[in-house]
């Protein structure tokens, strides 16, 4: 892991104008992201946590350059992202991919899996290695989908499968950074666990970085290398995962952690004992 971060965001600010309407309407400014700085290192997972309205998704969109900043800078591999134009911007879009929250909303309902998965390559004007069909099949296999379903439409898949399609699409251009915006929040818990494991495995294989946006601290703890906590547009605390979860410094982080509902550890401990005993019985 190099010391130079892959992505370096400095003093990001995003203001939205709230229109008063009409000819005389006064417009107010709302600061959704307020002086946010963060680094994502190569191969790591930085989790950005916060409640709704904390500005975490806006930050993600600023970094993906889906929206423009009010001020501040985003550097990717040493280049200022918001100064990029034309070819260079196009190339940046091939380096950074986004996996969205709602698997159905993020897949065009009128396109087949094959078209969806190869779309980033088409938009990047790159050739599809080995032809669209074979390429899609290979990607589908890698994310745990039946490759024979490549001609199906998104609606014919379950939520977890659809999210796998979204992940496959992100992998198509072999990006260096994947921004996962609440990528597992809409999934049932058993499916969620599978997708988290898939995300981790893919990172091990490919070595890309994640910017993992989530509101669920327990999920974040399973996947993050480092954690940044956001509240009302600001980052209140950044640190290694174990530090943030084990010894949170900011009162808001502490409040957030305290609020997480939890299964009592002693129950989990009892369950592990019982499991072990059962396994022993079965072996006997």
């Amino acid at each position, binding site marked *: 892991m190099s010391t130079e971060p892959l992505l370096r965001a400095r003093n990001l600010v995003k203001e939205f104008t709230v229109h008063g309407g009409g000819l005389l309407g006064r417009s107010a400014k709302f600061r959704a992201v307020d002086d946010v700085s963060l680094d994502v290192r190569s191969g790591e997972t930085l989790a950005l946590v916060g409640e709704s309205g904390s500005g975490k998704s806006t930050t993600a969109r600023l970094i993906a350059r889906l929206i423009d900043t009010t001020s501040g800078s985003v550097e990717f591999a040493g280049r200022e992202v918001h100064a990029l134009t034309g070819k260079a911007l196009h190339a940046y879009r091939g380096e950074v991919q986004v996996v969205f929250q709602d698997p159905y909303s993020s897949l065009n309902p009128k396109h087949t899996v094959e078209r969806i998965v190869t779309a980033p390559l088409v938009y990047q004007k790159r050739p599809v290695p080995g032809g669209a069909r074979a390429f899609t099949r290979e990607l589908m296999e890698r994310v745990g989908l039946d490759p024979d379903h490549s001609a199906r439409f998104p609606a014919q898949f379950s939520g977890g499968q659809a999210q796998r399609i979204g992940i496959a699409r992100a992998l198509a251009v072999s990006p260096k950074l994947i921004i996962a915006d609440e990528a597992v929040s809409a999934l049932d818990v058993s499916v969620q666990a*599978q997708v988290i494991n*898939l995300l981790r495995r893919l990172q091990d294989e490919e070595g890309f970085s994640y910017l993992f946006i989530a509101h669920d601290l*327990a999920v974040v703890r399973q996947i993050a290398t480092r954690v940044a906590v956001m509240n009302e547009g600001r980052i209140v605390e950044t640190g290694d995962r174990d530090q943030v979860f084990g010894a949170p410094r900011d009162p808001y982080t502490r409040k957030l952690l305290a609020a997480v509902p939890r299964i009592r550890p002693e129950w989990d401990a*009892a*369950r592990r004992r019982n499991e072990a005993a059962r396994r022993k019985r079965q072996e006997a």
Partner: protein
Amino acid sequence: MTSTSDERPLLRVRGLTVGFPTAAGTVDVVKSLDFDLARGGALGIVGESGSGKSMTSLAIMGLLPKGAKRTGSIEFDGTELSELREREMQAVRGDRIAMVFQDPLSSLNPYYTVGTQISEAYLSHRTGVTRRQARKVAIEAMERVHIRNAPRRVDHYPHQFSGGMRQRVMIAMTLSMEPDLIIADEPTTALDVTVQAQILDLLAEIRRDTGAGLILITHDLAVVSEVADHLIVMREGDLVEQGAAERIFCDPQEDYTRMLLDAVPRIDDEIGLLRTAAVETGTAEEDR
């Protein structure tokens, strides 16, 4: 309420089945469910999407969508609900059994003040009540769910409240009648985690103060572990496992329950590959 013995459960459900007629025959979304809820008890119904947990609650309330067929017995405080006529059921709803829904914004009518909506049940279940009294009841209910400035807020409209406050309004709505049973269907799913904690505390407080029974329907095992003393695990309309909450969390008997418990990411336990029942690359688990 005083006449019934304390051993008889508040709610006794036997063979509850809910089916929807389709072109390919009736599809059962709840299949022959049996369970009891003790007086003042808190029952958690847990399951993933499509498990039939919400339909179970609507079946108890007699609020199933058009076309749904319900069979089986639902005995509430000695009365067989499935035999009641619609008019008699209306007297039970809101008065004896109250319900809190998942999405507080869409569950509140945007055209009326929260005060109107809170006192609505009171006005229609009690005869000879003046509007003034009803308004007082509404304010009291709002105070009980800790909405500050209740006498002023009572005249506000739902869109003027935040998500958590709206859910408090929904709960206040159930309180105006002092029900014996509150059914909460995913009451905190749409809320932020800090607000969720407040609402869960509030539900616990109300149980303590009123002695009402609670059915909490949720997909979140961690939430249910904090609230319920008794648990039902459902999957695709079937009851997988039921028992005391501690027993199920400590010693689950069914593979599905174990799988669910394994899949829950922990905030203060080991970190590792989340154990999932299906082979992770296999699609069999989700594929239908």
